[in-house]
């Protein structure tokens, strides 16, 4: 009798503990602790809150509830890989690593396991070539496109001629920070500007040498590829040497409220790129308030809603949901597999009408993903910090990158990757 009871109890526990199959599982490799927690937390909140909204308001995607598996990486590559290994067996259909280092490690693993990875605005740039990187997607943009958009903005500011100008790149001395160098070198040849490289070692708390050099050499513009404390210190040091803030342009990972607030009024005028809108002036935020925050189901305290990084997390989640929806339409199944999710991502069409219908009109650029192009169209805008109003103002339309320069670089780098890894590129025609 006792044995029977034990068997029943064990069976019940197994049934409760086993992952429910009628779910779409999205792991979130987040970092809410450690030196980069201040940036990881709002992204993770936005990512989680959008999925909660879809579950609470719509009953999931096509009737299938979303299960979010959050795993803490501390922005540490080894921990990120551990998170991948420990969650992939749960039925994960998509990974969002939120770290260039982790993405690089997951590219071969996820490709072998047949699980798609999305690294929008980060990761390996040449993964935009879908013919080589079948399982990796980095739409809507990447670092090389970002570098080109920054230069295009400078060209616009200088009346179309930047020959003889000096542009300094202040970068995090890591794989991430070094990503734009090749592109900028090519663009320097094309436009005739000289490029000064200023690496900053992790974590970037001490940058006096770099800023003394900038003060001495007076570059016309400074571009920044920073992350975490490096951003706050750089903006403070720029203010200290009275560098004109409107000539200081950060990549999108150097353009959140966290980065500028520490400098106070002196941060006014600092610019950064972005591939989505800041603020909460979109209909979807009313629904988030109603179905998520007011219902007590928000991932965080609810105080990050509308911040740049919260919006980026929300945007990544929205793209995941729309890809899953596309996958359901293509396969005819509501319970999609990772391979079907990949197909959904490869056929994702983010039109302006679709974004408007989702309550996010004009929130991000319209783009289409194809077999050959996993990187979107690379559009990005420039936003500028208003220290008085404590908010980012968008000051340009979406700017197109210089594909003439970047596409050959993507082809070259992805071909090298294919050769190193014995990959035969797919025929996307």
């Amino acid at each position: 009798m006792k044995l029977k009871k034990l068997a029943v109890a064990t069976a019940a526990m197994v049934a409760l503990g086993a992952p429910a199959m009628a779910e779409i599982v999205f792991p979130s490799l987040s970092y809410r602790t450690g030196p980069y927690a201040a940036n990881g937390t709002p992204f993770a909140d936005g990512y989680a809150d959008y999925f909660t909204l879809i579950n609470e308001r719509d009953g999931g995607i096509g009737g299938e509830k979303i299960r979010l598996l959050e795993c803490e990486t501390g922005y540490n590559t080894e921990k990120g890989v551990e998170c991948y290994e420990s969650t992939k067996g749960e039925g994960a259909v998509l990974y969002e690593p939120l770290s260039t280092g982790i993405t690089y490690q997951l590219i071969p693993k996820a490709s072998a396991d047949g699980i798609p990875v999305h690294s929008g605005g980060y990761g390996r740039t040449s993964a935009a070539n879908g013919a080589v990187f079948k399982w990796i997607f980095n739409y809507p943009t990447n670092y090389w496109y970002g570098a080109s958009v920054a230069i295009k903005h400078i060209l616009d500011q200088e009346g179309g001629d930047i020959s003889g100008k000096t542009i300094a790149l202040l970068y995090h001395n890591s794989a991430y920070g070094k990503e734009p160098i090749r592109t900028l070198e090519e663009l320097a040849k094309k436009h005739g500007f000289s490029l000064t490289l200023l690496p900053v070692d992790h974590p970037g708390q001490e940058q006096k040498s770099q800023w003394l050099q900038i003060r001495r050499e007076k570059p016309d513009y400074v571009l920044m590829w920073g992350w975490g404390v490096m951003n706050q210190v750089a903006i403070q040091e720029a203010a200290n040497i009275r560098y004109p803030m409107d000539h200081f342009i950060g990549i999108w990972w150097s353009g959140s409220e966290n980065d500028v607030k520490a400098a106070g009024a002196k941060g006014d005028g600092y610019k950064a790129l972005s591939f989505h809108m800041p603020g909460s002036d979109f209909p979807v935020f009313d629904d988030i308030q109603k179905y998520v925050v007011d219902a007590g189901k928000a991932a965080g305290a609810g105080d990050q809603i509308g911040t740049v990084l919260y919006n980026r997390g929300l945007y990544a989640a929205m793209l995941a949901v729309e890809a899953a929806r596309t996958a359901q339409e293509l396969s005819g199944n509501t319970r999609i597999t990772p391979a079907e999710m990949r197909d959904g991502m490869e056929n994702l069409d983010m039109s302006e009408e679709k974004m408007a219908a989702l309550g996010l009109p004009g929130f991000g650029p319209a783009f289409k993903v194809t077999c050959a192009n996993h990187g979107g169209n690379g559009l990005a805008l420039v936003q500028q910090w208003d220290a008085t109003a404590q908010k980012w103002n968008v000051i340009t339309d979406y700017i197109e990158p210089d594909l003439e320069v970047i596409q050959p670089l993507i082809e070259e780098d992805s071909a090298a990757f294919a050769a190193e890894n014995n990959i035969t590129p797919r025929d996307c025609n």
Partner: protein
Amino acid sequence: MPEQFLWAMEVMLNGLMAGVLYALVALGFVLIFKASGVFNYAQGVMALFAAMTLVGLQKGQVPFAHLINTIFGTDVHKFGWELAPWLAILLTAGVMVLFAWLVQRFILQHLVNQPDIILFMATIGLAYFMEGFADLMWGADIKTLDIGLPQGVNAWIDETTFNLFGYGFFIDNLDIAATIVAALLVVALVLFSQYTKQGRAMRAVADDHQAALSVGISLRFIWVMVWSVAGFVALVAGIMWGAKSGVQFSLSLIALKALPVLMLGGFTSIPGAIVGGLIIGVGEKLFEFLVGPYIGGATENWFAYVLALIFLVFRPQGLFGEKIIERV
């Protein structure tokens, strides 16, 4: 004067200022090592915790707000007050004394006469516990530290050097403030350890725990006192570094900047921490300025350790450390 020479002078002065900031962190390590022979791995996290507590108290932030709201379904975040900086500093110093007492009561008291490596391991555990505790208590967001410290280029130095040399030197007002505070702190600490009863007792404990106990020195009191002083030094370091970058979790990594200073200056010398900090500051900045451009830059982190290693080879006890004599 040649431009290169002027630039090198400017870099050197900035190196001296940066060295003071490194020394501020190193001082906390020295104090605890001197008194208890413990290499306190948690010193960087103590600076973080102190700075977070300071901002939290000053801005009237409710500690453990997220936890309270989750458990009780409330929505409390602020008390609604804003404290004067001096009062917030005073209260934070009080919190650091309480922290020192807790460390002594729950960790050190149980590890008397244990090998140094055990004490070191305990501080590693303490560091990670404190990091999580600080996150739970004050949250992980970046906090702006505003206690009225001056920042930006010092106009007087800029103008004077421009009039003299035709090139205005950049010296940050915050660095000047840090130098003055560090100088006052060092004088106070040296006077305390050399000329007060408690200071002498502290040194006696550092020499031999059991011998100090046998002559009636209270080990508990000395350890609480030393960890309190180190907590206050951590608070000062946290303020200075936090003013540059905002108070955030990466503040705990400033400990990395103190290690070469300790290797160079010795683990037991307060003046050594200062001189070591200055040498490291000047050395790394000048190396970056003179050699960095030829080898791709970003030399400061590793060059500081190379410099410290060179000193270590010739003076293992550090520049001002006590000479190591082992009698057989």
